[in-house]
């Protein structure tokens, strides 16, 4: 229970609530990306070994890819109309 873990956890809970409550779709993507970064930091702080850092790196890259794919599809749907 470090102070840094508590601070990142509070930020993650706030971002999760804002993903749930915001109406605009682009803003939802922004808060989702922020929450993914928070969880990657919590993984690196929770496991005190090199394997934990590797898992955090892989999770960061893949979650960013997923958010960018959703954003690209949103742009294509806007272009289609």
């Amino acid at each position, binding site marked *: 229970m470090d102070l840094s873990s508590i601070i990142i*956890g509070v930020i993650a809970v706030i971002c999760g609530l804002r993903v749930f409550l915001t109406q605009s779709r682009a803003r939802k993507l922004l808060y989702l990306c922020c929450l993914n970064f928070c969880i990657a930091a919590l993984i690196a702080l929770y496991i005190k070994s090199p394997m934990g850092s590797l*898992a955090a790196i892989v999770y960061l890259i893949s979650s960013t890819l*997923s958010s960018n794919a959703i954003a690209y599809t949103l742009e294509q749907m806007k272009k289609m109309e």
Partner: protein
Amino acid sequence: MDILPTVSAICCVLGAIGVIVHTNPINKIIMFAFLESGLIGLIVSCYYLDVAIVSSILEPIGTVVLLLGLMKYEVVKKSKKKYGRKLPILTK
């Protein structure tokens, strides 16, 4: 009382409620990605690191497949061509 399992459980529960409540397909997929983030946090909190790495690599593939299906559905719905079978109704 650790901080990572707590935050991940909150993300999982909120994501599941959001997938049920939202009606727009893109909002549903956003909430699905939100649920997956909590899932990986719960896997890591039980110290299954290799499972978490493989699951992290495979999750964007599932999201991309869902998005491709959604784009194809929209294209078919907007085109004026008459198809033989009726389209399935995803949302109202």
